[in-house]
Each structure stands twice: as C-alpha cells, then as structure tokens.
C-alpha cells in the first residue's frame, strides 16, 4: 500500500486495537486523527474515539483511560505537545503506558509551521520513552513495538514515537501492512505477565500521589529505574519483531558500516537515510566512516553507544534542534557526556535542518570531511550552523 507517514501511523495504531484514542489535529499530524476517525467510521476498529477541545484534554483523556486499564493512543506535534505539557509529565508520573506519535516540528518561540526536532527536545525530561524513526515502514513497526515496551510490567511508561513532520508525515511510500493475526500474536505476550494495577471502583488507591515525602522519592526512583530497563528491553523486542515480521531496526541504535570505521556520524530521523548515502560515497573515496542512527533518545542508549564508539577517532553529530545554554546541539551535548567512557575524541556538533531546511548529501559530506580532518589531529570548529555558512 502506498500511503503517507501519517496514514502509516494510523494503520499502526489500528493494528494494535487501542481501547481509547483521541487526538486534536495540528499540522503536520492532522491526517493521523482523520485516518483514525475514518477507520472507526468504516467499522475497521472498535476503539472509542473521544472528541476533545484541545491537546491538554487529549492527553488527560488517554492518561485516565490508561489508568483504568485501557490501551490508548494519541498523536500530536509541536504547539500541541506544548499545550499538553503538564499532562505529558503527569502521564509519565502515573506510569500510564500510552503510545503517542509525534510528527516533529519546530517548537514555539519563533513561529514556524515547519519541521525540526525542537518539540521532542523540549520534553526530553518529561519522563517518556522517546524513539525516533527514519522512514515510513519503521513508523508502523515501531508503534507495534512501542506497545510491547510501554505495557511491559517492569516498565509501565508512556512512549513517544517520533517521525519528521512535513518530510515523513506527508511523504507517501510503499508500506507493508502486517496481518492482524500476526500483530495480535506479537502483542499477546503482554497477557502472560502479571496484571498491572489499575483503578478499581471501591478500592482506595492513589496514583501519582504519595502521602508523605519518602513516598515521593520512592515513586520517582522507581520511575527512573523503569526508564533504565526500557533500553535493553527495546533491543529484545526489536529482535523478536524481526523473527516474526522479517524486519528489525537495531533496537536502541542502528549501526551502519561501524565495525571498521575510524570516524562516526551520529544522526536521527529521516536524515539518517541521507547520511547513509553520504557514508557510502565517502567510503568509496577511502574515508573509513560509519553512521549511528540514534533510535532511542530517552532512555539514552549509553551502553550501546559506548560499545559502538569505543576506539573511534572523531565523531560528528547532526542535530535538527538547538540546545539553549550549551554551545552545541542537544544530541551532541549528550554524546559529549560519554567522554569518561569513550575517551577524549573530537566531537563536532552540526546544527542543520531547522525550519524545514534540507539536510543535503553535500552537507553531510562536508561534515564527514571535517570530522576526518579532526581525527587526523587538525584543528576544528566545535559547532557549525550549516545553513549560516552555505
């Protein structure tokens, strides 16, 4: 089937049979809400669709339904994500296993109806698991995997599945829609685990409340431990998905031509596809470069990155967002935090692709050349805003 990224997300959600779904339309994800409503209207799914007056209500509806034991789905982007921010944090504190797709777009501050990753960066400390995907099929497959991750008894955390707004959201590609019975089978594993606690009429339970201060510390601590568990769990789920469906994505990170590489480019989202082409070209020119596609952003795939980056001579990180208060991109800053484990190597931060600007193959080739030069011990510029230098 040739469908847009948004339609693909709606198909992914439908296949997981959510009990409750709601979404307030916003560019560039409105089509997800439209498609889901169409599925419901045409009798293709039994999900209860709740009409809401805004994103804040949307998140509160799915958080409540999730605490009552339901499987839930929602979608948003940028301003919508900002408008639901208190509820986003609440949902994580409630340990509500919601799956939400986000068609990434520039966040408020400078008006831009255009793509970028500033929206997910602005919620990186909200307590959600954050996965970033590269292309259409990966959107659908990751939504299915996200339910396995969110509803895992040991995790019980909400998951954001991120794809590039405007690029992936509107681009139509050939998508393989898995058989419903296969998806049912893949998700049935969740029924074998202990039942998670949900709201019970007549039973006095608090959710996201604690009574006394030490209770607060315990809930926060357990939230963090659950988040840490998600990293290795995603690798496991990804492998199992591959065995059943014949497609897998590397789990926390995808390593492309990394093994014998001297230098590495780190990117996420659709840019990773462009970067693979640039890596291939530069390999032909004799530069031993590899690519790491960052799929999991929260929890940060520390262990996998350390293993992949150990012994590499220089790293270039491409960010489609800015990091206020640090003179580099947010993902570059996080890579720098690995220094005690991977040693002191040049880490070059590239800021590109803001506000829908294309990150082109020449942009990435230029970055590779500079990273290679830094690896050879030459002086280098730490941070480069590519659009300002073109």
């Amino acid at each position, binding site marked *: 089937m040739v469908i847009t990224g948004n339609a693909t997300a709606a198909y992914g959600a439908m296949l997981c049979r959510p009990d409750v779904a709601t979404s307030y339309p916003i560019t560039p994800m409105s089509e997800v809400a439209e498609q889901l409503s169409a599925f419901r209207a045409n009798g293709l799914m039994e999900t209860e669709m709740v009409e809401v007056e805004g994103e804040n209500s949307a998140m509160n509806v799915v958080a409540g339904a999730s605490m009552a034991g339901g499987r839930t789905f929602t979608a948003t982007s940028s301003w919508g994500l900002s408008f639901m921010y208190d509820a986003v944090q609440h949902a994580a*504190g*409630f*340990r509500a296993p919601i799956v939400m797709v986000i068609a990434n777009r520039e966040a408020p501050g400078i008006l831009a109806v255009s793509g970028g990753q500033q929206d997910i960066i602005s919620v990186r400390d909200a307590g959600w698991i954050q996965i970033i995907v590269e292309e259409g099929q990966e959107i659908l497959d990751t939504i299915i995997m996200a339910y396995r991750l969110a509803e895992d*008894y*040991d995790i*019980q955390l909400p998951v954001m599945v991120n794809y590039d707004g405007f690029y992936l959201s509107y681009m139509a590609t050939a998508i393989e829609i898995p058989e419903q019975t296969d998806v049912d089978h893949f998700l049935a594993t969740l029924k074998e685990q202990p039942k*998670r*606690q949900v709201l019970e009429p007549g*039973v*006095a*339970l*608090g*959710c*996201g*409340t*604690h*009574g*006394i201060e*030490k*209770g607060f510390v*315990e*809930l926060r*601590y*357990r*939230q963090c*431990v*659950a988040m840490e568990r998600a990293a290795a769990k995603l690798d496991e789920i990804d492998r199992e998905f591959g065995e059943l469906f014949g497609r897998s994505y590397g789990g926390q990170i995808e390593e492309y031509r990394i093994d014998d590489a001297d230098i590495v480019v780190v990117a996420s989202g659709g840019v990773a596809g462009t970067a693979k082409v640039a890596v291939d070209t530069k390999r032909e020119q004799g530069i031993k470069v590899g690519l790491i596609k960052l799929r999991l952003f929260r929890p940060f795939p520390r262990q996998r990155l350390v293993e992949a980056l150990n012994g590499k001579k220089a790293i270039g990180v491409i960010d489609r967002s800015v990091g206020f208060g640090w003179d580099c991109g947010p993902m570059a800053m996080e890579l720098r935090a690995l220094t005690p484990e991977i040693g002191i190597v040049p880490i070059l931060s590239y800021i590109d692709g803001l506000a829908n600007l294309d990150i082109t193959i020449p942009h990435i080739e230029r970055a590779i050349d500079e990273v290679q030069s830094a690896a050879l011990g030459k002086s280098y510029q730490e941070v480069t805003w590519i659009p300002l230098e073109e």
Partner: protein
Amino acid sequence: MVHNDKFMFPYEGAWSDGREKLLCLDTGSWRVTRPVLDKEKCNYCSLCALYCPPQCLKDMGDHYAPDLDYCKGCGICARECPRGAISMMPEGEFADDSAKR
C-alpha cells in the same frame, strides 16, 4: 539499586495505598475548632458529608460523624448545614479526649 523490601508501595506502577499510606497525613492535628452535631436538628441530609474537603464524615445510619484523625476543623460542614445543626467548638473544650489522640 535499592532492594524491593525497602519500598513502601507494593505496586510496580505509581500506585500508593489509600488506606494505609495515602491518608497517613495527620491532618486532625491542625484542628483548632471541632464540629459538634445537634442531633435534634439533623435530618440526615448528607450535605455536610458531600462538602467535607477531606471526606472524613462517616455515615452513622441516622447522622454523620467526623473522623477526628483527619478532620481539619475547617467548618465547611457547619457553614453548609441548612438546619444549622453543626457548631464549631474550640478544641480547648475537649482537652481530655484530645489527649487521647
């Protein structure tokens, strides 16, 4: 990593037990006046219980009685009672049974 037996809540999620852990805040100790019911005037309409912020008015079958472990003495029940059956009395007048708490 802290071992499980150090945890006070038995659930993996964000759930706390309302009976034991959630209501253990000693809000009764904040009280300076206490609701006292004139049973002659009470017609068991339940408005006092509906308005009670900590929901500590217990149904006694023919009237409602405050659970003094949690009653903060806010006086909303007395204010809302349509028959004026509840008066707020200074806590000092109950020195003897206050000491029991």
